[in-house]
């Protein structure tokens, strides 16, 4: 095996290795513990899913994925993503703009409120919509009279998904736009640009990687949300089952190979998600580095990010 070089930024005969050097024994022990823990907790579950998916041969796998119920679940999941993600992107941009581009009291309250859906249990997230729109909920009777179905139908699923994925884009953009400040926009406007021009030509290019990052995370969660959706779905096969719910039904019916096949599809998407996320992260760092070479203003931006102001 190759040797371990101490310290991330100063690897390979860089200054400062004399002091930050830990003993070889300590290094290898720590690395082995880390690898063992992550292997057990993360890699083993992945392997098990794929093993389960192909246990009965690939024909079963394909059959499970092309079953009409599975196809319906894929369609509903896609519909949910198509509704929830764009709306949350618009919200994220609007909220970040309102919070970071203006002097504003109560800023931190708003930022905290945006984080709220993350700290609420998904079951409660689904439940509040049942309490509001369910048959015995507040608006239930009125909705019943007008024959509008929200709970146990796709609108409820979309609402619950929007609730749990609401913060993703906003919480990525707020710190980023906060760090970038207002100077660029003020410069653009002083040069005669309008509001939309300023946004599309000045702001958007500088936040695109942050936006991509938030969108990826938002999409992944929208695809995979289980708890909140489970509460409002009603589990009607071929109608109100998203992919994760479909996995649950198959599993509870002891159709393990089919359940793991659909799970395998979701795992593949998850792996693509984290790969895309790493790429975006890398691009983001690179663009920050490039800005840094850009001069003192960019350096000041980094300093401000660093000190968290």
């Amino acid at each position, binding site marked *: *095996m190759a040797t371990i070089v101490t310290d991330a930024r100063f690897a390979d005969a860089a200054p*400062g290795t004399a002091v930050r050097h830990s003993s070889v024994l300590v290094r290898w022990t720590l690395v082995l513990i880390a690898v063992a823990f992550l292997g057990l907790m993360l890699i083993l579950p992945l392997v098990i899913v794929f093993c389960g998916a192909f246990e009965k041969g690939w024909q079963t796998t394909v059959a499970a994925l092309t079953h009409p119920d599975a196809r319906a679940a894929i369609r509903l999941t896609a519909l949910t993503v198509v509704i929830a993600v764009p709306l949350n992107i618009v919200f994220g941009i609007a909220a970040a703009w309102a919070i970071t581009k203006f002097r504003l009291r*109560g800023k*931190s309250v708003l930022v905290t409120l945006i984080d709220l859906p993350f700290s609420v249990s998904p079951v*409660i997230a689904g439940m509040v919509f*049942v309490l*509001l729109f369910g048959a015995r909920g507040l608006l239930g009777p009125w909705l019943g009279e007008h024959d509008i179905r929200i709970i146990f139908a796709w609108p409820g699923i979309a609402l619950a998904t929007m609730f749990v994925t609401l913060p993703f884009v906003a919480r990525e953009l707020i710190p980023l736009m906060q760090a970038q400040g207002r100077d660029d926009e003020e410069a653009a406007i002083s040069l005669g640009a309008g509001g939309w021009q300023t946004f599309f030509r000045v702001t958007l290019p500088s936040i695109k990687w942050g936006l991509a990052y938030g969108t990826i995370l938002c999409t992944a969660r929208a695809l*995979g949300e289980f708890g909140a959706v489970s509460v409002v779905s009603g589990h009607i096969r071929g109608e109100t089952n998203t992919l994760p719910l479909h996995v649950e039904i198959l599993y509870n019916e002891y159709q393990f190979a089919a359940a793991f096949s659909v799970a395998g599809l979701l795992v593949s998407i998850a792996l693509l998600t984290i790969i895309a996320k790493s790429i975006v992260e890398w691009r983001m760092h690179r663009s920050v580095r490039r800005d840094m070479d850009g001069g003192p203003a960019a350096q000041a931006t980094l300093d401000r990010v660093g000190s968290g102001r």
Partner: protein
Amino acid sequence: MRFARSGRRSVIPGFRLTMGFSVLYMSLLVLIPLSTLGLWAGRLSWQELWTTFSASRTLAAYRLSLGGALIAAGVNAVFGLLIAWVLVRYRFPGRRILDTLVDLPFALPTAVAGISLTAIYAPTGILGGLLDKAGIQAAYSPLGIIIAMAFVSLPFVIRTTQPVLQDIDREVEEAAATLGANRLQAFVRVILPAILPAVLTGFAMAFARAVGEYGSVVFISGNMPGRTEIVPLLIMTRLEEYNYPGATAVALVLLVLSFMMLLAINLLQAWARRSAPV
């Protein structure tokens, strides 16, 4: 609540539009639905609340959820700190892949994690079988629940600690060395105090996530009332019985706990910012 702009008018347009949309969207989607829960809670009598919370089933569920989440977050705090250290300080083959994989629990649907962990830790599974021989029941027991909770909350401590560890000034560690401190003293007295706020923030986030977790836990827990039934599942059961007041009563405490955790995380983050390396 009023979010008034202070000082002079900004030259940047769009305040009304963006603030209006944000507040409206958030109200419709989050605030109004959550207040519905408050409305239902307001209708509860003290008698109903008392019945709910004196019931041994409710108490057992809360004990299990809180205790399990605490242990899971604790395990993740210890291993998260260690993994963050290894990922930041050491170079070894496969480091990048490991670093990327850490985010998996955020990207993987919880139901998938649930069935996979169950397959591993059930008595027929590869690890479950080994543990079974040793007389330890993993799946369908509190241990299984803790494993699932630890899985979903695994990235938090690592991701909050990594950047702080990365930013620790090389000079500060060198200063400790020139003053005669050994590696352990430098870690305990200089590095640990600097990253502690970040570790605690990650711990609180992991705890908040684990307490509310549903998808990954229901498969592995076995869902026996009073023994392996977590709070979110109890809420779910009450909802399926159309017992909305019962569900509301159980959910109320969990929601209040979430608010408290949110507040705690905010305070911790403010502290972390203050003590971040210069």
